[in-house]
């Protein structure tokens, strides 16, 4: 039997110290040992039974229940004041076999893998690598759980791929304690697995595009995500360059994404006609407090996999132009993390020298990110075409109403089909600012909440449609925020949730974040 330990913790905090938040209980469920229960399926179903037992307990007490993985979100999305469940020990993995495929599927069985919710990106990548496969894209690092990634829309920065949820093609949800509350959900227009597979995991099948798309970035509100079916691809390599380029060229590329006709190219990264190749990933780093004629950009190109390439990890470890917070803390360390000194340095310094080139797999390129101390991150999603204008506005905001101890970056990702995807535009520019948490009163500065609120107000005032990253800092209580960002899609999402859950189970899977954003609303 899977065993659960109960901890009356009182307070819970995110990995990046964005809390603490009042929390009564944390549960940790460990799977039954392989020796006692050798069959993968038995252990998976045993764990489902245990989670459903915990759901029943919470329901009986009329309390909430929420699973979480690594706690990397900086918003309070993962938090539940009554019961939180730490999922990381539930990490079963399975390659899908041909006889588990739906007869009308267009997917290749060798590309499909089923992962229990507590698997983190790094262990998924390792498992796929052993099968000659790779994830299609990840975030800037590898410690998030797969359920956390899709529930909050972790996006990475792959121009032609999309966010993590975009290669998820089936979800196993536990939506309550009853026999009918184990659900396998996939799109009706893109079948993946057959009913026999669902029966094996004791799930009833729902094939419905609207419900699947709503549950995909489900914010933990569509039930307990127990398993995820994802589509991988053959292993590949990424070649990474960090360069300084003319600011106007960098911003022009941000707006039109027309890399093939750009007057800027990297030697060796051209096609047979000498035209620049389209990168896998494009990122711009910006210090908002300095007028610099050049911006630092990161370009990554996809290459076929080969065995013999130099180990990139020693370079990755030293590289500072990776995760934005890594870059910022490397700057902050020079000032011993003193906020006034950091601000002073930002006002006079350009960004550090660029990193050297490297080649590695996706998992190596977006490798471990160490704990960086208390940190904040705000990310707005805008149409790439609007990105130069939005950047200018937010730079002015940071200069005129700040300063805040952080720097900006822009990344670009293909549109998602998920109803509440942060990556909502045909190509979404993630305009993000990362930095160290500061004490506004002590330093006589604008507060983080104030800065987040002003970011929203500035974008609305300038009629720039936007979204906000669900897992990052924002003024989540801003009136009418979700309706403004998603319009009718916010209503569709709530209606799909109301269709799947009862009023009682909707309350079970709600939390303060859903209440603050108005997304806990239930339609009878």
């Amino acid at each position, binding site marked *: 039997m899977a065993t659960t330990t109960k*901890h009356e*913790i009182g307070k819970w*905090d995110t*990995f990046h*110290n964005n809390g603490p938040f009042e929390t009564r209980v*944390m549960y*940790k469920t460990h*799977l039954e040992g*392989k020796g006692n229960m050798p069959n*993968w399926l038995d*252990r998976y179903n045993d764990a489902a039974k245990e989670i459903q037992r915990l759901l029943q307990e919470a329901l009986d007490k009329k309390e909430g229940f929420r699973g979480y993985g*690594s*706690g990397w979100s900086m918003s309070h999305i993962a938090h539940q004041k009554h019961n939180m469940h*730490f999922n*990381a*020990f539930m*990490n*079963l*993995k399975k390659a899908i076999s041909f006889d588990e495929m739906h007869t009308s599927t267009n997917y290749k069985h060798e590309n499909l893998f089923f992962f*229990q919710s507590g698997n*983190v990106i*790094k*262990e998924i990548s*390792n*498992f796929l690598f052993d099968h000659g496969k790779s994830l299609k894209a990840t975030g800037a690092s590898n410690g998030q759980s797969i359920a956390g990634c899709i529930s909050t829309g972790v996006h990475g920065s792959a121009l032609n791929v999309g966010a993590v949820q975009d290669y998820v093609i089936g979800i196993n949800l536990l939506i309550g304690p009853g026999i009918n509350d184990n659900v396998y959900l996939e799109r009706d227009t893109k079948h993946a697995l057959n009913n026999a597979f669902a029966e094996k995991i004791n799930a009833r099948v729902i094939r419905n595009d609207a419900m699947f798309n709503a549950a995909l970035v489900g914010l933990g509100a569509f039930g307990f995500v127990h398993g995820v079916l994802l589509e991988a691809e053959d292993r590949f390599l990424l070649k990474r360059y960090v360069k300084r380029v003319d600011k106007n060229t960098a911003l022009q590329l941000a707006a039109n994404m027309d890399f093939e006709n750009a007057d800027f190219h990297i030697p060796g990264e051209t096609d047979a006609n000498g035209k620049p190749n389209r990168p896998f990933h494009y990122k711009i780093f910006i210090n908002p407090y300095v007028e610099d004629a050049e911006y630092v950009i990161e370009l990554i190109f996809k290459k076929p996999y080969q065995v013999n390439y130099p180990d990139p*990890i020693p370079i990755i470890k030293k590289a500072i132009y990776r995760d934005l917070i890594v870059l910022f803390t490397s700057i902050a360390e020079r000032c011993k993390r003193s906020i006034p000194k950091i601000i002073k340095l930002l006002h006079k310094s350009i960004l550090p020298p660029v990193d050297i080139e490297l080649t590695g797999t996706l998992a190596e390129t977006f490798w471990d990110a*160490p*704990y960086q*101390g208390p940190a904040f991150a705000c990310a707005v999603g805008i149409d790439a075409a609007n990105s130069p204008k939005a950047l200018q506005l937010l730079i002015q905001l940071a200069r005129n109403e700040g300063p805040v101890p952080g720097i900006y970056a822009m990344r670009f990702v293909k549109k998602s089909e998920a109803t509440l995807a942060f990556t909502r535009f045909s190509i979404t520019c993630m305009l993000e600012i990362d930095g160290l948490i500061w004490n506004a009163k002590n330093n006589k500065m604008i507060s983080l909440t104030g800065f987040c609120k002003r970011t929203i107000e500035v974008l609305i005032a300038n009629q720039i449609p936007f979204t906000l990253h669900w897992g990052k800092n924002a003024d989540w209580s801003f009136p009418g925020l979700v309706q403004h960002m998603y319009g009718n899609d916010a209503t569709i999402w709530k209606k799909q949730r109301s269709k799947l859950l009862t009023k009682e189970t909707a309350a079970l899977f709600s939390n303060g974040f859903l209440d603050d954003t108005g997304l806990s609303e239930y339609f009878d």
Partner: protein
Amino acid sequence: MLIVLPCKKAIFLLSLLLYLGIVPACYSVRVMNKDAVPEPDPMNTSPDFYRGKLTHVLDTVIGLKLLDGDFHLIVKPCSSRGFYSFEYKVDFGGVMLSAITFGKKRKVKIKYVCIKETD
């Protein structure tokens, strides 16, 4: 010949010697497994590398007999999974202890994280 130093100079020289003796003798080295995933611990809120990781600490003194050669310190918690990271620390006290006991007493201070169990 007896050299008599002014008091301040003597203190400075003594501090310098002490510093030069202690600083190189105090260090730590952390070895990490590149592809491994650490065993998690949501209760570990330490503000450093070990945050969120189940961390084992071993701080002991081992005693060797006169004819003992190699010494193996056996640790159990990682079972057959292996180490995600392993850090050993050498401090001045440990160096002194080893020196004055001719290596027969050794201070061992290690901190390690196991690899997450995988299925």
